[in-house]
């Protein structure tokens, strides 16, 4: 089976780039390279990952400055042509700032940095990132962020719902969407959304931190595997 080539973008302040690289290369045995944010070529990668971290120190707003790194104009062109882009945590914040996904991220409702395992319900199991994930009520994947409180106005939320763009919601271990399972105050428990075309996904939880069996949890790897198994089909 033909396998995709992954590119992990490295911004100043990215700190999940190596974790992501490790999972893709060592755990999943895939072709992956780092892409420095100042370069203008995506080097024929089929999937671009914007990793977690604190690009540019989170100054001004999370993701606001990274969005203008030279590589981002290539990422935007790539996404516009249907290329697959996955933004994780700070990567999701950059996608919002770049306008590739709708809405904004604000400070967690209770102001604390939340770093713990949470459960995710798949709301749209037809995306390339989720259609290979079967038979799970809830994926156990960690979050680690201070600004993951997703907000969008009513019109945008209706549009997201109508187009089935909400991919992940925070839920209980049994898969129920409850206020108690919402770790940061995100509107409607939203944890991950996709663009209309279905090729750009942003998610706050870190699948790369629950992919290596040595860590005792592997639900995150299901998302990478789904992508790999479906990208050329």
């Amino acid at each position, binding site marked *: 089976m033909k396998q995709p080539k992954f590119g992990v973008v490295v911004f100043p302040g990215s700190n999940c780039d190596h974790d992501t690289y490790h999972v893709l290369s060592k755990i999943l045995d895939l072709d992956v390279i780092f892409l420095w944010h100042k370069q203008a070529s995506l080097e024929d990668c089929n999937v671009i990952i914007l990793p977690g971290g604190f690009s540019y120190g989170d100054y001004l*707003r999370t993701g606001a400055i990274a969005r203008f790194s030279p590589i981002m104009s290539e990422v935007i062109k790539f996404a516009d042509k249907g290329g697959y882009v996955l933004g994780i945590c700070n990567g999701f914040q950059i996608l919002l700032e770049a306008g590739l996904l709708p809405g*904004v991220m*604000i*400070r967690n409702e*209770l*102001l604390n940095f939340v770093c713990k395992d949470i459960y995710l319900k798949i709301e749209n199991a037809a995306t390339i990132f989720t259609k290979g994930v079967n038979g799970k009520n809830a994926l156990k994947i960690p979050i680690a962020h201070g600004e993951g*409180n997703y*907000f969008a106005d009513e019109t945008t939320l209706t549009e997201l719902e109508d187009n089935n763009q909400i991919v992940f919601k925070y839920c209980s271990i049994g898969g129920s969407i409850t206020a108690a399972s919402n770790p940061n105050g995100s509107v409607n428990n939203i944890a991950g959304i996709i663009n209309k075309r279905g090729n750009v996904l942003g998610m706050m939880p870190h699948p790369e931190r629950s992919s290596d069996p040595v860590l005792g949890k592997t639900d995150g790897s299901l998302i990478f595997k789904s992508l790999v198994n479906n990208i050329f089909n």
Partner: protein
Amino acid sequence: MFKAKVLIKRRKTILDPQGKAVEIGAKHLGLRNIKNTRIDKYIEFNVDTNDKKVAEDEVKDYCNKLLANPIMEDYEFTLEELG
């Protein structure tokens, strides 16, 4: 040369968790009349041109594209000519 002073305010309809938390501090201080605390951003910089129209356009561009996020924030600014 102009000095630009920009005030960026989060829209009233969007929760300001920082403002809310700081106001809890006010309550703990015993300040009973403090209401609706909002934490906004104030940014200063120089614009190196003598043409006010050029300066205004550049400040607007800076605000619209980078300093403010038009989805959740509004901005206002002043330009003061430096002698």
